């Protein structure tokens, strides 16, 4: 299941690691997640559903859903998709609910950190926010759940669109490296601190004036250490999660978010399967389909429920040139298979999006990718008490914010997909705006003139027909913000 040769990525499978899975000896490589190592050896069933004991595989691959939880070295509920594989660890499936570890943080010292700006998430938005703020001399702490910075850039092997300042023409994986380099430089200068493999678990009552308090759990060797973070401003750049689609069989191992498959093959060099059905012809569905072919995996077809292809024509065209059919007004009806995906039934839809009787067609496949949109990750934001609204054009619930990306609570900012689903290029600019605005608000204002420039860049990127959704979303947000302030 390993990808041995790839046209874009040089995988290094250097250091072999040995571990135990349900008492069996297994092997993986340094750099693997537990999930990728298991997957590479053909293990696709990760959990069992509580009620009907149905087998489940992992879905999101980026630590946002719960379908990959296992017990590692006795610690329950470890998200194996983002937990690093280590030598000699002991991994077990959890067939029933695990016991709560007793008083995990009791008697353990808690560490306290004071910073100017806490940045939650080290993806394109969070990294740009951090670099911008640190360049203003603000002290920044970045917290991210993964083992590495870059967020979802680390799996984007395609070249980005946009213009020079948004690094157009550069592959996402290379943009991640460039941003990482800048962060490392600022780390050396003592302006940025980085906490990886760490989760911001909550927002707490402040005991210092003008400070926001967050709790962070850092994982070390699958054990948890509690941190208290006090910051004058916080930037939520916590990304988004892929949407699920309702149909019979959607929980069979072999059904993944398209982004999860991208992670598996482009980060860990593991094939998700051999024959893929892609659901959704937006940019994600089109791009991941193309990348599957690059990894040597067959894409049977792309089905799209809408009567037209949603993504860029250039992405659709390069897929069609490879002979992959894109079926518009088609959806997935159901999946079949014994404990794993063995095939799908697709169906044609009429102009009211209703299935047309007798149009069922079987598609043989072992993998189904869902590329049916994303939902902003806002759970932590909900807790802070910022004003939140449901805005379909932004992908769901999002925190209202002004043109400096500040929410309704002073000092709390958002950027990237967490502020509405868009492209990585817009996420980077939003991050720059949030980082700069937060630094300026704290008195680090040497380059505040750049704010206008970034705002214009952002507006320009959204000016075309593909920027219509974010434009509508932003109009709605603006209106709701006005309403809120009118009432004050």
């Amino acid at each position, binding site marked *: 299941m390993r990808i041995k040769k790839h046209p874009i990525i040089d995988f290094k499978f250097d250091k072999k690691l040995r571990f135990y899975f349900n008492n069996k000896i297994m092997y993986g490589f340094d750099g693997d997640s537990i999930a990728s190592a298991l997957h590479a050896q053909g293990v696709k069933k990760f959990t069992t559903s509580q009620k009907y004991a149905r087998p489940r595989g992992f879905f999101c691959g980026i630590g946002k859903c719960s379908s990959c939880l296992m017990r590692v070295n006795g610690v329950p509920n470890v998200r194996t998709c983002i937990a690093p594989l280590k030598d000699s660890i002991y991994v077990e499936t959890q067939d029933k609910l695990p016991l709560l570890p007793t008083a995990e943080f009791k008697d353990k010292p808690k560490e306290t950190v004071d910073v100017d700006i806490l940045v939650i998430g080290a993806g394109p938005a969070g990294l740009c926010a951090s670099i911008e703020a640190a360049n203003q001399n603000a002290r920044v702490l970045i917290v991210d759940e993964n083992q590495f910075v870059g967020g979802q850039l680390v799996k984007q092997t395609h070249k980005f*669109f946009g213009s020079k300042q948004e690094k*157009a023409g550069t592959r996402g994986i290379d943009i991640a490296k460039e941003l990482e380099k800048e962060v490392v430089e600022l780390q050396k200068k003592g302006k940025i601190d980085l906490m990886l493999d760490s989760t911001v678990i909550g927002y707490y009552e402040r005991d210092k004036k003008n400070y926001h308090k967050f709790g962070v759990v850092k994982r070390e060797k699958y054990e948890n250490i509690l941190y208290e973070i006090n910051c004058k401003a916080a930037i939520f750049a916590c990304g988004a999660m892929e949407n699920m689609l309702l149909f019979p069989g959607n929980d069979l191992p072999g059904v993944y978010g398209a982004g999860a498959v991208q992670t598996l093959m482009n980060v860990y060099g593991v094939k998700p399967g051999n024959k893929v059905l892609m659901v959704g012809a937006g940019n994600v569905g089109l791009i991941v389909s193309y990348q599957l072919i690059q990894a040597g995996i067959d894409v049977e077809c792309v089905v799209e429920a809408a009567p037209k292809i949603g993504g860029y024509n250039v992405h659709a065209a390069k897929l*069609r040139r490879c002979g992959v059919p894109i079926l518009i007004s088609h959806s997935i009806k159901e999946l079949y298979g014994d404990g794993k995906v063995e095939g799908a039934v697709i169906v044609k839809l009429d102009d009211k999006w209703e299935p047309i009787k007798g149009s069922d067609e079987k598609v043989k496949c072992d993998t189904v990718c869902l590329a049916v949109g994303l939902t902003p990750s806002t759970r932590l934001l909900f807790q802070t008490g910022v004003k939140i609204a449901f805005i379909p054009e932004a992908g769901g619930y999002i925190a209202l914010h002004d043109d400096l990306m500040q929410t309704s609570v002073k000092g709390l900012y958002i950027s990237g997909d967490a502020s509405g689903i868009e492209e990585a290029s817009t996420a980077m600019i939003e991050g720059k705006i949030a980082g700069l605005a937060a630094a300026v608000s704290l008195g680090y204002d040497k380059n505040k003139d750049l704010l206008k420039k970034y705002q214009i860049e952002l507006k320009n990127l959204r000016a075309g027909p593909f920027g219509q959704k974010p434009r509508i979303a932003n109009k709605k947000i603006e209106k709701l913000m006005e309403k809120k302030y009118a009432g004050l």
Partner: protein
Amino acid sequence: MQDYEKTGVLSLKDLKMPTKKQLKKGVAILECIQEIPCDPCVESCPVCAITMKDINAPPINNYEKCIGCTKCVGVCPGLAIFVVKIKDGKALVTLQYEFLPVPEVGDKVEALNRKGAKVGFGIVRRVVKQGKTMVITVEIDEDLAMDVRNIRV
């Protein structure tokens, strides 16, 4: 709604066609007709033949100015630029290729159209590596010049 929005495949009527004379010297066909925010091709052009009104406008190639240098081919994030040159009853098509194995000069490859169907064979005439991107020139029959847009090695 345009046909290509349903199929993903552009037809010749969607494109600005060069004249025979222009094809003889070789020109870049920009198969990028939607308004998307992107402009590396404009920056790459050494003779300023490619222009766009603003970052969202589709690029336009001035075939009179274009020298067919193929610099824009490898920078296009959409893999949507093809340089076509007609010479002695043959056509040379230069395109981006991002798969393995990478062909070598002289190799015989399958020539595919915009739907991925094999329409003939081609001979690889040039392979240029730009980072991880391969820019490949393939020689095909002249009548396939505006049809062949991919190869299978």
